[in-house]
């Protein structure tokens, strides 16, 4: 039923997909922290820049961004192949999504928290460490996990710019063996396990972080 050797190839592809997603999640989170800081900047131009960035990245398909970067890379004389372009575009993409998640989290910190922090005279660093960070991580965990799942799925788009990962592996096997249902079913199973796993993992972390009587209360 299953074409010989295809299961191993698909598993390899899944590993590459997961690696791409992991790189994008780590890179995107770092980028998003910078972006979210820009969103709350005192300088209006920086805030505007943030809005433009998010508007462009969320308003254009990932594939268009990927192709733009893929074709632009050789033009910039960076002979790096599709992997760098692919990872980069995923980071740019998830960075915008994570940044919006973080921004929403900061905005949903109840006003009394800010006021009491200020009235205690907490310096900015302590305010971030003791008030903002603990609250934002708890508020944003569910949407953050959603974006992580989206990132795994979005990595499939990179197959079109010839990044060899799960979807491209599946496509290659199908073109050789014509076992459309089997191979796509298996690929779907791999994706499902990865995405569902991330979702479950997120829920576990959520439960662990939950503070009794507080984490559920939002402004």
């Amino acid at each position, binding site marked *: 039923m299953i074409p010989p050797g295809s299961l191993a190839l698909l598993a390899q592809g899944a590993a590459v997909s997961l690696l791409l997603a992991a790189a994008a999640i780590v890179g995107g989170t770092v980028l998003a922290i910078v972006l979210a800081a820009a969103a709350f900047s005192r300088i209006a131009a920086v805030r505007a820049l943030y809005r433009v960035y998010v508007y462009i990245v969320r308003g*254009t398909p*990932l594939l268009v961004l990927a*192709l733009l970067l893929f074709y632009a890379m050789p033009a910039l004389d960076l002979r790096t192949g599709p992997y760098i372009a692919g990872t980069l575009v995923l980071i740019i993409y998830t960075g915008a999504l994570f940044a919006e998640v973080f921004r929403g989290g900061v905005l949903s910190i109840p006003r009394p928290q800010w006021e009491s922090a200020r009235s205690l005279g907490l310096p900015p660093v302590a305010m971030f460490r003791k008030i903002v960070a603990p609250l934002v991580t708890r508020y944003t965990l569910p949407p953050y996990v959603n974006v992580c799942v989206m990132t795994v*799925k979005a990595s499939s788009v990179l197959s*079109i710019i010839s990044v060899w990962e799960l979807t491209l592996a599946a496509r290659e096997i199908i073109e050789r063996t014509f076992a459309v249902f089997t191979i*796509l079913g298996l690929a779907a199973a791999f994706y499902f396990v990865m995405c569902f796993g991330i979702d479950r993992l997120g829920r576990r972390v959520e439960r662990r972080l939950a503070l009794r009587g507080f984490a559920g209360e939002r402004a």
Partner: protein
Amino acid sequence: MSFARWVSIYGSTYWTGLAWTAFIALWASFGAVVWGCVLLLIRLSAGRWGARGVDAYVQLFRNTPVLLPIYLIYFAFPMIGLPWPAVVCGGLALILQNGAYISEVLRGSVNAIDRVQFDAARSLGLAPWGTFRKVVLPQVLVYSLPALGNQVVLLLKDTSLLSAISITELTMQAKLLTEQTGAAYEAFIVVALLYLVLVSSTEVLFRVAHHAVRWR
């Protein structure tokens, strides 16, 4: 080549791509909303097993990338004797995927309906189907308009993936132009701008619609 010169020479070649993208996005969005309503109806009326089936369906499509159903329908339908055009296959895949998300959106809005209305519907003698069509559905669609708008925008952006099954929509058009002229920047920046325009106008449209029906 300067940007203005590029647009003056190749601008007109984008029209077909734009038309295809808009056409597919339009009918697929419509189909996805209808399919989402059907899934909601199954969930609400077909008992425990109906709800479980819809749940499994939603989970499956939530946790797999949309490229898989696109490839599945495109490659598999000719094998089972349904040689449909790529546009239909691609649109169908988008409908299956986005319908799953939309049914979840609509389900969220069902909870916003006051329980009293169900009692009122029953006391008026409305059958379950009548209750769904005349009481539940109109309110649910109005409540979910903003979320539906988001989903339609996602669908619109996902139409770009149909370039992988050789539909000459905007993204494919840009790819072809790039191969012809070697000017990737120009070709893709125009396409990116066109997507931005499409996405923004969709968002405005849904906002206007939301304001128009909010106070009924």
